[in-house]
């Protein structure tokens, strides 16, 4: 174990090294760019036995890792905003083929270059696991865990780990780097399922598509495999803590100072860190509001929120992305999760941080005040733009 002060993109590249990725491929785009440079430097220095393919566009990088994963290499790719949108087409093939590719998404909005979560949110239908993280240490740890979860035989689903551009990608903080030996022991080598090598292949995979039968079946299998991420991520978080001494809630959510809370703010990514500071301040003032940081958007922690809903009077959902005409994705999914409960807490929607707009501690204090008021029966508008 060692420490280094590093930017978020270096933390991502360090995770790639620790996971001993065999084939990585990426196309530079702000604010992901320096990952490609770190990987190129690591390749040039021969830091470990891997191949880095500098390609001519994001679509190609996604297909390169898809094919390499199919053939039997552990893979990594990364991108931002428009680059992720350009990858959309092959991403659904990676998902449908159930290839455990791991990708870092360094958030960049697409109305301007500053970060929001609209890039990764726009890929909801591609059949990947989607996670959102808060700081550089969590980037490194989450990418390592993503390999363990994605490659688990119960899952075999690609995972995207998103973190806010600039705020994390280019900002340095101390990061604890696990020992290579410990990671090697914890993360076993990757084996493809099934093999496509001529001497190992199962002849039933020769034909095109899924074969005959129920055309809906591939969707059902795919959906159930993505849902399996929940249990495997929770297990993986336990084993990660046991091995490396850190954890982030149960993997799906990370509650912060929720012990005596009556209401929770739900936030993702870097602004969850800002929210922690606001919670500290509010609790000192006797306001009973805490934070539930949402880490896994897909699969969504339905059961966890249902459990918390039994104890709480209100949820304030801060969405850092919006589907125009439809609203915030987390807000909608959370309300759907609570529908079956007999007693439903109050829920409020906050649109914040879009286009990289600053979200400050006092904004979260306002959010906290509003949800506490609404939970006590006060009149508060349901949707607020911060």
């Amino acid at each position: 174990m060692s420490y280094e002060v590093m930017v978020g993109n270096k933390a991502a590249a360090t995770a790639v090294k620790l996971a001993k990725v065999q084939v990585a491929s990426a196309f530079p785009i702000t604010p992901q760019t320096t990952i490609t440079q770190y990987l190129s430097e690591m390749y040039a220095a021969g830091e470990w036995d891997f191949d880095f393919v500098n390609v001519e566009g994001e679509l190609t990088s996604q297909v390169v890792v898809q094919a390499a994963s199919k053939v039997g290499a552990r893979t990594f790719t990364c991108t931002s905003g428009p680059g992720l949108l350009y990858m959309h087409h092959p991403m659904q093939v990676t998902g449908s083929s159930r290839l455990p590719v791991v990708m870092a998404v360094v958030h960049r909005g697409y109305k301007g270059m500053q970060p929001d979560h609209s890039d990764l949110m726009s890929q909801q239908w591609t059949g990947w696991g989607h996670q959102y993280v808060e700081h550089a240490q969590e980037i490194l740890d989450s990418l390592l865990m993503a390999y363990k979860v994605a490659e688990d035989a119960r899952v075999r689903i690609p995972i995207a780990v998103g973190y806010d551009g600039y705020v994390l990608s280019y900002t340095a903080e101390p990061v604890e780097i696990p020992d290579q030996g410990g990671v090697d022991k914890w993360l076993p080598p990757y084996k493809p399922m099934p093999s496509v090598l001529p001497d190992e292949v199962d002849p039933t995979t020769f034909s095109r598509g899924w074969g005959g039968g129920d055309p809906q079946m591939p969707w059902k299998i795919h959906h159930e495999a993505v849902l399996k991420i929940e249990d495997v991520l929770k297990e993986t978080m336990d084993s990660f803590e046991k091995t490396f001494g850190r954890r982030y809630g149960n993997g799906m959510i990370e509650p912060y100072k929720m012990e005596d809370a009556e209401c929770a703010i739900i936030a993702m990514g870097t602004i969850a860190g800002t929210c922690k500071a606001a919670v500290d301040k509010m609790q000192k003032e006797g306001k009973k509001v805490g934070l539930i940081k949402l880490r896994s958007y897909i699969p969504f922690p339905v059961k966890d929120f249902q459990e918390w809903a039994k104890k709480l009077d209100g949820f304030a959902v801060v969405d850092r992305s919006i589907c125009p005409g439809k609203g915030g994705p987390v807000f909608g999914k959370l309300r759907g999760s609570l529908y079956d409960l007999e007693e439903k807490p109050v829920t409020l929607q906050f649109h914040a941080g879009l286009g990289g707009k600053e979200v400050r501690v006092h904004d979260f204090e306002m959010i906290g005040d509003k949800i506490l008021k609404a939970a006590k029966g006060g009149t508060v508008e349901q949707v607020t733009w911060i």
Partner: protein
Amino acid sequence: MSERITRAQIPISELTITPGSACQGCGAALAARLSFKALGPNVIRHGIPCCPDSVTQTPRVGTVFEGGGAQLTGTARALKAIGREDVLAVGFYGDGGTYDIGFQGLSAAAERNENIIVITKDNEAYMNTGNQRSGATPKYARTSTNPIGPRSRGKPRPKKNIPFIFAAHYVPYVGTASVGFPEDLIAKVTYMKTIKGFRMLIVQSPCPVGWRFDPAKTIEIARSSVQSGIWPLYEILDGKTFKLNYKPKELKPVTEYLSPQARFRHMTEDEIADIQETATANWENLLKADEMGRLTL
């Protein structure tokens, strides 16, 4: 350079499972049958959307239409990573996947000199969706998106010179082949297996349905294309060493190639003369390059 073989040297083994789901007289199915005879079984076949010409007794992987160059790259890099460079990464693509939607990714793979083989069964239009024009469609050809009418004489622009475009990436090997010349095709695939890096073979593959001719005439059409200088057979190594593989003393007139195909039936004398002139001029250039043994790209 490929070494001339006789018909008796064509491998007897069949790696395509017949009958495939191809139409009668399908040139692309024949291109697959011949190519895979020479490639052998130690191959991962890569597909992208195209005509379902054949099923081969090799593993087959596929991806998005535009991802042909990228998936071969990923496979080749992963084979190296896992120490299985004995396995060939082969793309068997159509002209859309090579000339058009797949061009960017293949161009980039060529520029990186990926250790891959690309075989294009060029049937000169999007035949899988019903004969819409492609970048490989020749001038004046009628397609379902180039109907003949007062404002249209078929496709207004010539076919892209894709072998030269890829040769201008200075890759180890680019060749043209025809299903009408099986010995030449097999010899070229056999040679490609002996070298490393980016290798590409463009196989002209007549399509009776799209080109509109009697399915029994596939070989005749393919041969007359080569014999009239419309589709010359050649090889380009490293973007400079050049060899014409088939040099008749005299070219046949292009009408021998054009006339049996209904896609060219509307052509006027002047339009035929335009094609004849282009074919003759191109042939003279290729003869000069062949004499020098090199190209200047």
